[in-house]
């Protein structure tokens, strides 16, 4: 089995605040991430693709197809955006990196077959680094 991992970057702002909690509870739970004016990160995203190596091309997947998919579904949607305001999924959902990782996994998964119509390659894992100290990881479902 071979697994290829490609790294991408995007910068975005967010505020962690749950409408289901009181102001005090939000401040206690999210700390400085609850700052009413928001804050931002340089996110690093690692996307891992698993599959057999195509004998002819020597590739597990087309890197240009992967780049296009990630650019279209993640970079263009999130880069230099305010996640709470500009990404519909985070209208009701708190844009924690847990929820952001799920959103990225689901966006890639929903468009995977269109990006890789020839099949073979599957989404193995999505890993999101919010900072150098905080990393979130989800296995793929396609």
């Amino acid at each position, binding site marked *: *089995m071979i697994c290829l991992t490609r790294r991408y970057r995007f910068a975005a702002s967010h505020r962690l605040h749950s409408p289901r909690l009181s102001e005090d509870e939000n401040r206690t739970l999210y700390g400085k991430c609850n700052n009413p004016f928001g804050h931002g990160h340089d996110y690093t995203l690692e996307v891992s693709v698993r599959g057999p*190596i195509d004998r002819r091309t*020597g590739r597990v997947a087309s*890197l240009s197809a992967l780049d296009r998919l990630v650019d279209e579904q993640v970079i263009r949607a999130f880069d230099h955006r305010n996640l709470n305001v500009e990404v519909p999924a985070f209208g009701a959902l708190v844009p924690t990196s847990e929820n952001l990782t799920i959103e990225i996994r689901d966006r890639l998964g929903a468009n995977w077959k269109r990006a890789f119509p020839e099949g073979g390659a599957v989404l193995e894992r999505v890993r999101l680094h919010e900072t150098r100290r905080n990393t979130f990881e989800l296995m793929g479902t396609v």
Partner: protein
Amino acid sequence: MFITRRVEFSASHVCRHPDLTDEENEALYGVAARLHGHGHNFVVEVTLEGEPDPVTGMVFDLKRLKEILNEEVVRPFDHRFLNLEVPPFDRIVPTPENLAVEIWRRVAPRLAGEPARLHSVRVRETEDLHVDYFGGGE
């Protein structure tokens, strides 16, 4: 327990398939298809799996692993044009995927009969791209 040793080599390669047109190669491999080749500082991480020996406290002698990796990977690959100088890359495209499989093929027999077994080979072509090979299936 897993133990990992890292080695590096600098080499040039070109990723293009002789049966494909220039346009098809460009679409498939991007700038890596440019005819005259380009280079990378490849990083190889070889991971062995085993239990620490009760006497030595080691899963495997890392000095020996370093020697094996120097003989099988660094010496044949470092400062070479992979397509022209390092078989089988005269016949198969030297993608990081194929490099990982070839490094596995070279290293695995050197560990035959040892208590530690080869678990994975990671080839890092750039900071933004690496592959992990766990053996089999090729």
